[in-house]
């Protein structure tokens, strides 16, 4: 049996079984980390990488396997649209029907598929956006139901501009709120902005700057003013136009600090947090 497991290790690793657990559950919580199908029987294995120490902890049929998994993770209680992907892959690998899975999961799976099944028909790269938690199915549904061809102006932005995960999440939040606020449909958005987006030619900084100005103008205006104040402060510091000595003497310290960015300023604030100098600097900035 050990030999069989080692022989089929790649097949096991690539099986849909490895992802057949609730999407909301972090992989690290999935304490039975590996499931293997051997001679039409299912086995939970502990720690596949250390194959010599592999332990077979459960042997079961397909029916029992599904039931046990659902019960083990209370999966029925925490079904979310993203679970449709792992369930779909499982169905395909073992040549099952959705109806069979409805029986195991109960009606909630049928309703989930009815409502969110559209995500299974999306092009693969967009499915991955949802599966990786980058795009919310609800947002895509909203965009679709508003006649918004999201893949023309939304998911393409995410994939074509090669943004980091955190940038992608920010873009989704920003753009999602904006289109809801404005009540755009696809034609309006594309007509207005497709040329602009194309003109960025994949430049992430231009894209993010554009979206920030478009979707969050008050914040951008505030940040520009803040930057200007910081530059002014820096200029005054360089020109010795600020009487630092008075406040510094009272705290009995000397200040050697180069403030070029707001991050520098925040770091300085942190260091001086407990002293009155913090207040003095903040006042200079705010006035």
């Amino acid at each position, binding site marked *: 049996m050990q030999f069989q497991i080692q022989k089929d290790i790649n097949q096991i690793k690539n099986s849909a079984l490895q992802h057949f657990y609730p999407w909301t559950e972090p992989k690290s919580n999935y304490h039975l980390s590996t499931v293997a199908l051997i001679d039409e029987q299912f086995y939970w294995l502990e720690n596949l990488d250390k194959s010599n120490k592999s332990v077979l902890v459960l042997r079961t049929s397909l029916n029992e396997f599904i039931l046990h998994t659902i019960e083990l993770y209370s999966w*029925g*209680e925490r*079904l979310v649209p993203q679970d449709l992907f792992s369930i779909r892959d499982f169905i395909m690998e073992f040549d099952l029907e959705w109806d069979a899975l409805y029986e195991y999961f109960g*009606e*909630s799976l049928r*309703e*989930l598929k009815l*409502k969110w099944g559209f995500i299974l028909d999306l092009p693969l790269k967009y499915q991955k956006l949802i599966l990786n938690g980058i795009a*919310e199915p*609800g*947002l895509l549904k*909203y965009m679709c139901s508003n006649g918004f061809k999201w893949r023309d102006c939304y998911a393409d932005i995410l994939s074509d501009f090669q943004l980091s995960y955190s940038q992608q999440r920010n873009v989704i*939040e920003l753009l999602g*709120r904006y289109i*809801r*606020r404005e009540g755009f449909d696809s034609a309006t958005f594309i007509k207005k902005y497709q040329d602009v987006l194309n003109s960025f030619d994949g430049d992430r900084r231009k894209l993010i700057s554009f979206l920030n100005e478009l*979707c*969050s*103008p*008050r*914040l951008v*205006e*505030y940040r520009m003013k803040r930057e200007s104040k910081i530059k002014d402060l820096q200029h005054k510091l360089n020109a010795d136009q600020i009487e630092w000595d008075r406040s510094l003497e009272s705290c009995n310290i000397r200040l050697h600090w180069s403030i070029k960015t707001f991050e520098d300023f925040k770091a300085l604030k942190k260091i001086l947090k407990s002293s009155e100098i913090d*207040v003095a600097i*903040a006042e200079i900035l*705010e006035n």
Partner: protein
Amino acid sequence: MSVTFEHIFIDSEVSDSRIPDHVNEYFPNQKIIEVRGFEEIKKFIDRSDSKSIINSGKKLLYLNNYKGDVIKYCPAKSPGEYLCCDLHTINLMSNCIFNCAYCILQACLTNPVMQVHCNLDHIFTELGKFDKNVNQTIRICTGEVADSLALDNILHQNEYLVSYFAECKNLYLELKTKSSAIENLLKIDPKGRTVVSFSLNPETIVNKIELHTSNLGERLSAARRLISAGYHVAFNVDPVLYYEGWKQDYRELFMTLKEQFKPGEISWMHLGLLRYIPGLAGIARQRFPGIKIFDQEFVQGPDRKYRYPKPIRDEIYAFLYENLEEWDLTMPRYSCVEQSSHWRKFHPHIPKNTAQVNEQVLQRIV
């Protein structure tokens, strides 16, 4: 609002019969099902989708004992530079029958049932130890994961609580509510130890997105009656929302307050702007189709909560404080989880720590 439950459960571990007796009295014809733990209730929960789960939780009443630490620090506290109001909490209930579109409970309550904890003696014993050991005045609130008064006509919990706190040395009880169910409170003399803090918003907000709560007029009328009965009353204008026409609506709210309450009558004013954790907006959009409050500009803070950008926050706070000062110049006030720069800008006295915030909040009472 008439309250009904599809099922009422009592855990077999409950031995203190005071609250179960009140429930029995209120629902004389409804069977109370005895269960051994939450597991037995699960099958009654409609789990079709997240919307059903939340709604289902409001229809199942589960009487049990509270386990774990009785006194906790307010969960709204954020790490880092945010200064909070030093509130402590006890959870006598978990979940709420009201339906406020912005409510954080939608995103964070894991057990979708209305849990009511009946082991009052244990809770009072722990409070007694705490009262003896602290050397400062502490506000203890019951309304962080429930509304303090929403079910009081049924449960009568607050009669016991108010009487208990009336004899405390260092502790003050704060009941946070959007309800006007105060009849039971009026039977008890709080001896100056209970503050009922009403959450307020303009009438249009209350009607549209604070569903099933008492309307603004009912809350203010309840506040007036409580003052007459010897209770302290405070107001929480939280969450303040930013939308087209917000200024006029909040102006009207403050005008109403000014007309009905003289300077000095209200113990404190708490202002808080809409802030929310990631995930809440999606759930709220599902439960309240067409809701717009999460579509404004927001920025994510170091505590991961979304807030209006600073210039919008400053604009709102400046407007609200101006209105507050027109009404009652010296009213103690605080803002929930704002950074020190906010305090410098909008508060006459800058507290150095959360304990000082608490002292300022309580200055009209202690």
